[in-house]
């Protein structure tokens, strides 16, 4: 289950209300951007369960082909963010087992989904620090994200 905080949803309201003529057509589109930033900065922020709201149970159709990539990004980035070596077989195997789940349609375990949500929440917090009020125009919103964050992601 992909979730985000109610504060995120409220903050993004004017951007999400412009969905019709926007590239950000569904809530998950915005979640995905936050996730990239959270993973890229190695920043997580634990979601307060009482203050969260569901986005979608499984990947929207247009993101289905990214399921494997996102799972790998989570394994790789979380190993890096935790300071673990990516050469240690036991650590890597244990991380893969922690993250990957063939029983889930999202290919990741329930705990990994929570971890992913925390990274997306970290991404949101980083964005909100730079953008107190959301930019409602999708082109300008993405331009700001690109300028402020993209050069430093995954460095």
């Amino acid at each position, binding site marked *: 289950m992909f979730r985000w905080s109610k504060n995120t949803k409220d903050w993004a309201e004017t951007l999400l209300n412009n969905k019709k003529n926007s*590239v950000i057509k569904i809530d998950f589109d915005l979640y995905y951007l936050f996730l990239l930033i959270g993973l890229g900065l190695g920043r997580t922020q634990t979601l307060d369960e009482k203050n969260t*709201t569901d986005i979608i149970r499984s990947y929207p159709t247009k993101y289905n082909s990214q399921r*494997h990539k996102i799972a790998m990004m989570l394994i790789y980035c979380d190993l*890096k963010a935790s300071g673990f070596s*990516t*050469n240690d077989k036991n650590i890597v195997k244990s991380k893969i*087992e922690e993250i990957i789940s063939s029983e889930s349609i999202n290919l990741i375990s329930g705990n990994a989904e929570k971890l992913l949500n925390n990274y997306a929440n970290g991404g949101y917090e980083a964005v909100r620090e730079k953008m107190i009020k959301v930019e409602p125009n999708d082109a300008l919103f993405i*331009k700001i994200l690109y300028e402020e964050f*993209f050069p430093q992601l995954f460095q």
Partner: protein
Amino acid sequence: MKVSILEFETIGLRCPDAKVSFKNKETGSVINLLQMPNGTGKTTMIELLSGTLTGQIENWTTKEIKEFMGKSNDTNTGEFRLELSIEESNKHPKNISFLVRFDFEHGVIELFTIRNVESGLEKGHLPPPSLRQFISQGCVDVFCFQGDKINDIIDSQKEDAEVTINAFFGFDDIAEFLVDIKKYHRATTQSGNPTNQGNIDSLENLKQSWEDRSSVLLTRLDEVKINRKNNNEVLEELEKKYQKIITASSDQSENQVRLTKAKEDAEDSIRENLISLWDELKNPFILSDSLLDGLHEFRANLEAMKLPGGSRAFFEELIELDDGCICGEPLIPARVDHIRSKIEEYLGTDEANIVNAIKEQINETYKNGYQSKHLNDEYTKLEDSISTQTFAETDLTTFLDDIKKNANADDKEIIQNYGTASELKTKIDGAIVKLEKEYTPDKTERLRPSECFSYKAAENAIEELSIELGKMSSRRNITAAYELIKDVISISKENSLNEIKSLLKDSTNEKIKETLPAGSPLEVVELDKYLKLGWKDTVQSQASGAQNIIVAYSFARSVLEEADIEFPLIVDHPVANVDKKNRRTLGSKLGLMMHQFIGFLIDTEREGFLDGVQESGDVRYISLFSDIEGNKAFIDEVERLPAEEYIKSKNGYISYNKDFFVSNVMGDH
């Protein structure tokens, strides 16, 4: 089934008394062009045609009805009669008439149908059953529309293409049916006996709160929609006046066109570049070179660590079979123990498959030579187009500010009011988006109906609560059946809608190809809520005026064809936004497009278009005007014609003379 309009007649209404006959042929096509001076009642006639065909005229309000009274009407009554020809396959055409009687004193109308001579006047809207499904408002809007509404089917802000499909192919009926079974379910479960009184009372109360909230929000939505309609009318009027202020100087008019086009081009460019960048962003591996390098190295590490290597299941099976090792040696207990001690180093089969698929994707991305430079290039294009748009917007704003500065007091007021109405439009549109926002309140939100501002969300909350309550009552079998039938119908509807969209897309493209000059790079790339135009999978935000019309007509024809019905196409100012050369081309193609075309023409459309339609085939030229001082020139001219070439009514003239039509220009734009 082929439906044609034979004639309509107006008496005592907000247009001259006249019987307007349209040409129709058993085979082949015919074009009817109708010209009228401004203020003669063109809009009135189109509204009467549409309202009578659909039967919606019976729902007009007292105020609306009274607005249709003619100025010189001294009887307080009026009539509108519409005669159609309906030809069903292998049958002789039948005529059917609808007669609307207006009582302006009381603001009421009576609608009658004359199915044949024997049946005489029958009260009510009684079209043949086979026609009934095609003359709902949604369907009539497809073949009876204003020329400037053409863009609505390709406007991403509107959903007119899907609305049309829903109306023509019965999806509206399915939606209504779903609402009916929802109501039935709610009513039935409400009357059931609770099997567990526990939470039922509080859920019932909560559901009631949501029903109250939904009702408040729906009322608010209706009010806002009325405000939108009123404001749009004001805005439309103000826009015309505003344009007149600008066009008062020809230089300024050209400047405005140039600056507006520059701004629109820049906006299109932003959209194109944004879509390209967004597509690139969908591959997270290419966000940064160091990420891709890191992942590639990680992949190599996995290989070196033999992860996943083989799967745990393989070794488990090997021990289970007890048929020796794969090297041919027997599996002695020491070896089995060794394998068991190592088995934990391997992943399960399913996990191993996933990791292998991931490794493959890393390899593929790496091998394809993706680099973040590519993403940066896309971003730079977007950045450039945003700068261009900012400059273009500033130029246009400065230009419009100058016009306002130099305008006289009256014009300043018009410009001011236009700005205010435009701002109000933005606010109203925003309010409607909020009221129609589609989502289902989550568990916490569900406890706070008063904080919900979307009636759709309120309805979804009621739906969920009804299902929960149903499951807690003795009627839970009905709830289970309801959920099943709802899912089956919704899924089937979705699948059918997608199939029809795909068929219509192909059929529309075939017609576009037939009509546009050979090799024209334009097609419907996607048919969703609206028609996305482009070429070879690349979307373009807009086409030329002529192309838009061809797309709209092709789409309308495809819908009618697929529904196996032919209607006349009735269009108000059909080629207003088309340049002269294309007007001629379009005129010459009209005959290919439909069996009967009725166009209400304005002066600026004549050049080129009249030459074109003559090439198209059979044309009827109709001039209609009121008997008023302002039309003296037309009256003098028409009365010079032989008596059989025109008909004078109590307050107007109608002529079918081609030369009169061509030499007398009516309907200033």
